[in-house]
């Protein structure tokens, strides 16, 4: 145990906390710079305290590696991480995400014309969306083999129902007044759909798309626990855990975190462009 690191971590924490309180309660707290600075300071504090505790208490690598050790591992194993990223994210998660969300969107538009189907599918869809669908992973791995196709299939199943429910809800989001207006224009079904109801549904659709980004990555990673070729993030995590190579595990988790937030951020950015008229986007 070395007291220096522990004391350093504590002092840093106290100083950062004081700084944050000061910033948050200062007159400049409404500005964008402070709004960015406070969470960044908080994040850095966590990393420094983590590093300090690991070094100060001599925590062994097999329990919790320090951030610096994870970073070192990350930098030296970029090729492996990239290969895993392509296998799991680009091939597995993205393919499944596009197929699943696309299929759900088309299904929603199709069942939109039948009140009966909607009344039946919505409760069932809501019910299925709450189930532990990850559990279908072993079955789908058995059907589609070990490679990325089975991971994409798991992702399709996972994202389908949340997306379906959101899209159907969105298509119902227009008011009677708006639909009446379209009918006084003598708009056809297709015109009403493309000019009024789909644009009005966009906030809901993007909500479904955003929920699905996280689900897609989770599905692809967890499906790899049930069998995978010798690459992929889930595969690497489960084998490196077995070898007690925890720095590599954390490096993969860092990749997953970066990929997950970037994916979410990208969808949120597209949303901002598409639904610029919505109150939640006008700030």
């Amino acid at each position, binding site marked *: 145990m070395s007291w220096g690191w522990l004391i350093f971590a504590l002092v840093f924490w106290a100083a950062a*906390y004081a700084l*944050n*309180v000061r*910033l*948050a*309660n200062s007159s400049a*707290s409404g500005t964008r710079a402070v*709004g960015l600075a*406070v*969470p960044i*300071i*908080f*994040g850095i504090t966590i990393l420094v305290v983590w590093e300090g505790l690991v070094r100060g208490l001599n925590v062994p690598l*097999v*329990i*919790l590696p320090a951030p610096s050790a994870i970073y070192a591992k990350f930098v030296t194993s970029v090729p492996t991480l990239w290969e895993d990223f392509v296998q799991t994210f680009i091939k597995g998660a993205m393919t499944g995400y596009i197929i699943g969300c696309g299929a759900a969107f088309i299904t929603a538009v199709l069942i939109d014309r039948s009140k*009966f*189907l*909607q*009344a*039946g599918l919505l*409760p*069932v869809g809501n*019910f299925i969306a*709450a*189930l*532990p669908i*990850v*559990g*279908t992973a*072993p*079955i789908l*791995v*058995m*059907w589609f083999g070990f490679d990325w196709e089975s991971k994409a299939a798991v992702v399709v199943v996972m994202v389908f129902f949340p997306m379906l429910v959101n899209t159907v809800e969105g298509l119902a989001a227009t008011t009677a007044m708006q639909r009446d207006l379209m009918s006084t224009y003598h708009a056809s079904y297709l015109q009403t759909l493309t000019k009024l109801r789909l644009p009005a549904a966009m906030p809901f659709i993007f909500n479904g798309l955003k929920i699905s*980004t*996280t689900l897609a*990555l*989770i599905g692809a*990673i*967890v499906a790899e*626990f*049930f*069998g995978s070729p010798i690459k992929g*993030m*889930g595969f690497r*995590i*489960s084998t490196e*855990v*077995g070898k007690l190579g*925890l720095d590599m*595990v954390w490096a*993969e*988790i860092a990749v*997953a*975190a970066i990929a*997950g*937030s970037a*994916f*979410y951020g990208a969808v949120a950015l597209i949303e901002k462009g598409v639904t610029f008229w919505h109150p939640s986007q006008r700030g």
Partner: protein
Amino acid sequence: MKTILPILTVVAAIVAIWYAAAIPMNAQWAKDQAARADTTLTTGELVLDTWSQERPRLPAPHQVLSELWDSTGDMALNGRAFSKRSLILHAWYTLSATLLGFAIGTGLGILLAVGIVHSKAMDMGVMPWAIASQTIPILAIAPMIIVVLNSMGISGIIPKAIISAYLSFFPVVVGMVKGLRSPAMMDLDLMRTYSASRSQTFWKLRLPASMPYLFASLKVGIAAALVGTIVGELPTGAIRGLGARMLSGSYYGQTIQIWSALFAAAILAALLVGIIGIIQRRSLKRMGMAA
């Protein structure tokens, strides 16, 4: 009645599609067996065979249900409700870890939300991370938590509960922060004119006002907690719990076992969400907030 008929139709359609899909999925195996025995199957025989194989690629619904009954109700009737092969026992392992984790996660989540609402520094510092953390595939760390805690000598229910606590934590934080902030300016002004202290405002206005949000996020949280527990059971060497049943089923090609574990998990999830729904309706009604 108006809603039940469409739902039943959809469910019936799903079951019909399922039976239909089982035929082409399992036909290859049936044909191979027939070729090996030097017999040919009529279409009727082929269809019947695809619905009654021992290790089908896609078991028919009645096979799954009968396996489900065999490993739960039937065993219970024979007084073996807690034998090792009983799904009741496995479901209990999963349920207990889920409930413990859910309780921890919800408790901590509410505490953090209270802190965030009352401290501006925490709000600005923690909240972006709480939201960002929802975009991260947290489940990926499940195997690591299990193994690391095991190496520290902690095993059994605690590691699984930690994972499910972690998963149910963030929905509760985000929902509760929204809920505690939901009183309108007018309500808060009223409390001010009463000269209410901060804690009085909290207990008498903010907390009751947050209840609808709390229940909505509890529903999300308990479903997430169950998923967390099941995934947490995967790397433990497949001994206990519904997740372990799925993993061992996939190792030994026991498809019916996987499907029945999956159904058991689905039933468990539906029960848990349903119970919270009932509590929600009851308590909101008593508080005069029923929708």
